């Protein structure tokens, strides 16, 4: 998530103090992604350095005011209108764990899948509790929580699919068994003791 652009968006409707920006950011994201004040000021300093915001220079700290510049407004519009890059898929740690688990002796890849499925479900239960306790009017909170829930649901569905595929093809991810005695260069140091 771009904190930088979120701050520009808040400043687009008028000047604000740093602390004010932090509080408004938290309110608009339903307090699910709270920022610390230091993060806000570091980001504002970088935005000022890049010419996207201007400060009133009156004070340092909480009472220092900021406003968006024309370049900042252009940058905000450019960001809003630019789709996320779709191309090379990201390296997903969960995917890699499942792919390599089948190669590790003594590890049941379907148990690895279940551990992650349970952890995801427990996190989804916590997010759902946040939604259950929220009022009808807390739309920003519902949007943020839903976004996380849909992301985790996709991971659970992928795990279900991986589980079903591996049930049908239990040995599909196992590589060829190395010939006995190889590779000798790796076997030799072990006999001299671990470093």
């Amino acid at each position: 998530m771009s904190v930088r652009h979120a701050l520009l968006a808040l400043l687009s409707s008028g000047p604000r103090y740093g602390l004010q920006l932090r509080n408004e950011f938290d309110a608009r994201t339903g307090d699910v992604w709270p920022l610390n004040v230091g993060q806000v000021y570091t980001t504002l300093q970088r935005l000022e350095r890049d010419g996207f915001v201007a400060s009133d220079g009156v004070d340092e700290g909480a009472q220092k005011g900021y406003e968006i510049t024309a370049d900042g407004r252009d940058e905000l519009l450019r960001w809003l209108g630019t789709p996320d890059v779709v191309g090379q898929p990201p390296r997903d740690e969960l995917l890699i764990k499942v792919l390599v688990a089948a190669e590790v002796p003594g590890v049941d890849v379907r148990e690895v899948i279940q551990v992650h499925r349970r952890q995801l479900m427990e996190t989804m239960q916590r997010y759902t509790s946040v939604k259950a306790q929220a009022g009808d009017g807390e739309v920003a909170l519902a949007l943020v929580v839903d976004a996380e829930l849909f992301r985790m649901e996709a991971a659970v569905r992928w795990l279900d699919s991986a589980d079903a595929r591996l049930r049908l093809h239990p040995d599909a991810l196992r590589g060829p068994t190395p010939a006995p005695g190889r590779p000798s260069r790796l076997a030799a140091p072990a006999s001299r003791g671990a470093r």
Partner: protein
Amino acid sequence: MAILELLGVSKTYGAGEQSVLALREVSLSVAAGELVAVMGPSGSGKSSLLTIAGTLEDATAGEVRIDGAVIGALRAGERAALRRRTIGFVFQDFNLLAGLTAVENVSMPMELDGRPAKAARVDALAALGELGLADRADRYPDDLSGGERQRVAIARAVAGERRLVLADEPTGALDSVNGESVMRILRNVCHRGAAGVVVTHDAQLAAWADRVVFIRDGRIVDQTAAPADPESLLAPLP
């Protein structure tokens, strides 16, 4: 207090080489005030678990207790009475009778159980009112939206003195917003004192439960721990 207890329950369909072992020594306890979701792939035994918990089928082995009663020890008539009085069912396709109004659909099971029509109607109206359907009580199912029909079905499942609500993919025919609404209602109904079991393959809907049980090849293989305080989600961004 446990309302539903399955103790070492197994279920086999057919005999000999054609037999299928649907449940293998399943033990599950659901307390009053608790909603449990059962998740698992097709053919894992989810539906068998629900039908046995609902006394619609007998276990091949093991014991089922509902509200303290050992189901295997009951005569057919006693079992049917317990089912009508204590257990409410919610199905994916609502199973409402088209020729009856919403309030008649809700009150009919209570009348069949011997409750006077007037008292059954009062209970039915109360259940509909709690689910926000007071102004729909005299509508027929065809005049209700999908979400409203499922709420009527839930009202029917919880009206009267029902202690156990069993739901089989209760949101399957609904969009995500109405599905969420149904799960929110089931959660609230259980938190007011009923025990609930919902079978679903939908992770977002299962997340409304207090506990998620995972079933695979007829066995319960895992379950979630009690949800942590939601405040623990509010960690600062890295």
